[in-house]
C-alpha cells in the first residue's frame, strides 16, 4: 500500500495529473440534474466505441475503389469477429446520432443554451454537423451500390450550385466521375479529418461544461439574468451542489451501460449493415437508399415542388445551420422552463415530428415506382372473373405496359399514382381513354406507346373496376378529378 501511495506521489509530483483531473471529476453539479442529463454522456460513449472499432476496421479495410467492397466481405466472412466489429461500428454510429439528437432536443427544451452556455450550444451544433458528416462519409466507406448512387445524389445536388457547381462536384468527387479518388477522399475525411475535428470539438465542449457548469433543471420563474447569473449559480453549486462523481455520474453510468449492452445485443443479433450489391455502375437493377440518418432528407427531396427544388436543396441546409447557430443569440436570458416557452416546445415538437414523418416516407418511398410490379404481381382473381376476352386482354395490357409499377390493384403495386380498384366509379369510359392516351396529373401519356387495340382493351378492363352495385361514372366529358394538362403537378 505504501509502495502504491509512493508511486502515485512520484507520478503526481512529475505530472500533476491528479490535480488536473480531480476538479473535472468532483466539480459540483446541480442536485436536481437527474435522468434528463444522461444523453450527452451516452453520445460520448458511442463516439469512443466508434473510435476504437473504427481503428480496428482500418487495420483490414482496403481504402481502394477496386478492393474496398471485397475487403468488407473479407472482414465479414474471413476475419475472426470481423462481422461483429462491423456490426458494432454500424449500430453504434446510429446510436450516436440518436443520442445526440435526444441530447440536443433536451438542451433546446430546457433552454440550457442561454447565458452563459451559448458556446456550449454552438460547439454542440458543430459536433452535430461533424457527426452527420461522419455518418455520410461512413456510408461511402461501404462502397456498395447504395454508396455509389448516394454519392451520385450528392454530386447531382452539388452540380445544381449556380456558377461553380461543376467545380464543387469535381472537388467532392476528386475528378469528373465517381471513382478511386472519390473513395480515397472520403476515406481521408472519415478517418483523419472528421474524427480529429470531433475530438477537438468534444474537448472544447468539455472545457465549456467545466467552465460554465451543468445547467439546473428549469423551474418556472427562475429567470436567467446574465449580469447576476454566474455569481448566483456558483453560489448555489457551492451550497447545494453535489459532486459529479459519484452523484451524477452514477446515472450516466447506468444509462450508458444499458445502452451499450443494447447496442452489443442488436449488433450480435442483426449483424453488420451491408455491404449491399457490388459497386459496379453497370448493374442498374438497384434501388439506392441512404442510411437512416439521411432518410428524412431523401424523403424531403422527393416531396419538394420541382419549381423551387434547387433553391430549397441548396439554401435550406445552410439556413438550418444558421438558425441553429443563431438560437442562443436570439434569446439568451429569461425563462428556461418549457411551460413558459410554449412556442419553443411547439417548434421542437414539429421538428421532431417532421423528421420522423419524412424518415417514414423515405423508408416506404410511395413515390417510387415498384420497378418489377408489372412482371411479379399477380392480377387479383376478383378482377378477372366474369370478364370478357377483351377485358381480360386489357388486364394483360395493364400489366404488360407497366401500369402496375405505379398503380395498386387490391393493395399491391406502386403508390405513385392512385389505386385503381374503383377507378370506374370516378372516370367514365371517355375520360379513361383520355387519361391513358394523354396522361396528365403526373402520369406519362401512353398515346404513342399503345396502339388503338391495346388502348381499347386496357380501357375496357379499367371500366370494369368498380364495386358490385355501384354505378359507373357516366357523365361524359365531365371535369376530371385529376389535374389536367399540368405536367409539373404531382
Amino acid at each position, binding site marked *: 500500500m505504501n509502495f502504491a501511495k509512493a508511486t502515485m506521489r512520484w507520478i503526481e509530483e512529475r505530472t500533476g495529473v491528479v490535480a488536473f483531473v480531480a476538479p473535472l471529476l468532483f466539480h459540483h453539479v446541480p442536485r436536481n440534474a437527474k435522468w434528463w442529463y444522461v444523453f450527452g454522456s451516452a453520445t460520448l460513449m458511442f463516439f469512443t466505441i466508434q473510435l476504437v472499432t473504427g481503428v480496428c476496421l482500418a487495420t483490414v479495410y482496403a481504402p481502394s475503389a477496386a478492393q474496398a467492397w471485397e475487403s468488407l466481405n473479407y472482414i465479414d466472412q474471413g476475419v475472426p469477429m470481423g462481422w461483429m466489429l462491423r456490426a458494432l461500428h454500424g449500430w453504434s454510429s446510429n446510436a450516436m446520432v440518436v443520442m445526440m439528437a435526444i441530447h440536443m432536443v433536451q438542451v433546446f427544451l430546457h433552454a440550457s443554451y442561454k447565458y452563459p452556455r451559448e458556446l456550449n450550444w454552438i460547439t454542440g451544433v458543430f459536433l452535430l454537423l461533424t457527426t452527420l458528416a461522419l455518418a455520410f462519409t461512413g456510408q461511402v466507406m461501404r462502397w456498395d451500390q447504395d454508396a455509389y448512387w448516394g454519392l451520385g445524389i450528392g*454530386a447531382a445536388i452539388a452540380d445544381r450550385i449556380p456558377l461553380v457547381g461543376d467545380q464543387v462536384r469535381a472537388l467532392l468527387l476528386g475528378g469528373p466521375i465517381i471513382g478511386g479518388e472519390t473513395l480515397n477522399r472520403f476515406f481521408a475525411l472519415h478517418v483523419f479529418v472528421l474524427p480529429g475535428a470531433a475530438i477537438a470539438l468534444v474537448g472544447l465542449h468539455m472545457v465549456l461544461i467545466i467552465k460554465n457548469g451543468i445547467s439546473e433543471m428549469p423551474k418556472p420563474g427562475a429567470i436567467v439574468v446574465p449580469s447576476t447569473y454566474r455569481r448566483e449559480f456558483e453560489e448555489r453549486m457551492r451550497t447545494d451542489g453535489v459532486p459529479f462523481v459519484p452523484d451524477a455520474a452514477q446515472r450516466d453510468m447506468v444509462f450508458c451501460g444499458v445502452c451499450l449492452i443494447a447496442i452489443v445485443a442488436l449488433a450480435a443479433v442483426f449483424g453488420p449493415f451491408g455491404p449491399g450489391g457490388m*459497386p459496379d455502375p453497370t448493374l*442498374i437493377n438497384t434501388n439506392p437508399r441512404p442510411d437512416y440518418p439521411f432518410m428524412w432528407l431523401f424523403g424531403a427531396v422527393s416531396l419538394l415542388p420541382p419549381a423551387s427544388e434547387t433553391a430549397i436543396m441548396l439554401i435550406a441546409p445552410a439556413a438550418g445551420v444558421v438558425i441553429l447557430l443563431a438560437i442562443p443569440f436570439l434569446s439568451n436570458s429569461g425563462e428556461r422552463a418549457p411551460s413558459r416557452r410554449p412556442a419553443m416546445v411547439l417548434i421542437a415538437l414539429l421538428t421532431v415530428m417532421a423528421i420522423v414523418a419524412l424518415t417514414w416516407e423515405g423508408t416506404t418511398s410511395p413515390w417510387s415506382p415498384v420497378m418489377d410490379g408489372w412482371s411479379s404481381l399477380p392480377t387479383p382473381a376478383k378482377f378477372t372473373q366474369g370478364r370478357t376476352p377483351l377485358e381480360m386482354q386489357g388486364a394483360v395490357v395493364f400489366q404488360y405496359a407497366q401500369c402496375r409499377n405505379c398503380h395498386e390493384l387490391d393493395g399491391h403495386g406502386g403508390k405513385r399514382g392512385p389505386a385503381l380498384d374503383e377507378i370506374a366509379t370516378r372516370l367514365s369510359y371517355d375520360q379513361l381513354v383520355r387519361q391513358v392516351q394523354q396522361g396528365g396529373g403526373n402520369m406519362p401519356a401512353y398515346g404513342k406507346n399503345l396502339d388503338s387495340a391495346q388502348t381499347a382493351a386496357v380501357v375496357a378492363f379499367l371500366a370494369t373496376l368498380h364495386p358490385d352495385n355501384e354505378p359507373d361514372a357516366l357523365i361524359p366529358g365531365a371535369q376530371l378529378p385529376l389535374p389536367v394538362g399540368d405536367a409539373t403537378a404531382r
Partner: protein
Amino acid sequence: MTAQGNQCGCGGCGCGATKPPSSAPADARRGFMFKLGAGLLGIGGVLTSIPIVGYLVGPATKRSSNLWVDLGELSTFPSGQTRFATFLNPIRQPTDGDSAKTACWVRCIDATHFQVFAINCAHLGCPVRWFEQSKLFMCPCHGGVYYQDGSRAAGPPPRGLFEYAWKVQGTRLLIDAGRLPGLEEST
C-alpha cells in the same frame, strides 16, 4: 498549475529570481527576432500551402474534357430499339476498379440516327431503367419517368435525360464521354 506558475516564463514579470532584469537592447533584439520568426514562418507556410492546396483542389481546376469512346458494332443496336450499353470511362484511374465502368442507353432511331442517354436520372442521378413495353424510362429513387426520346414524362426531374454526343465511324458507334453528366450541360 498554480496561477503564479502561469505567469512565469514571460521574462518580464520579475518572478524568476535568477533572471536578470531585462535591458532595452535585449528587448529590441527580441522584438526583431519575433518579427523575423513570424515573417519566415509566414513565407514558409505559404510555400508549403501552395502544393497542398493545389493537390486538393486540382480536380476542380482540371478541364474535364470528354473523349470518344467505342460503344460497339452498329449491328448491336437494331433500328427502332433502345439497348443497354456499357463502356470503360476513358479518363479512369488505376484504382477505380469497377467504378470506371459506365452504363448508357442507346436508342437507334434509324440506321443513321441515334440518341445515347446517360444512365443518370436528371433529378438526382440515380440509374434509370428502360421499359420496352411501355417505351418509358423509370427511375427507382424518386419516380422520374421519361419518354423514349429522353424527354421528361413525369416526376421530379427538371429536364429530360442527359445525352452524349455520338458519331458513326465505319461500322462502329462512338460517344463523347468521360464525365458524370450534369445540369450545367443543359445551358
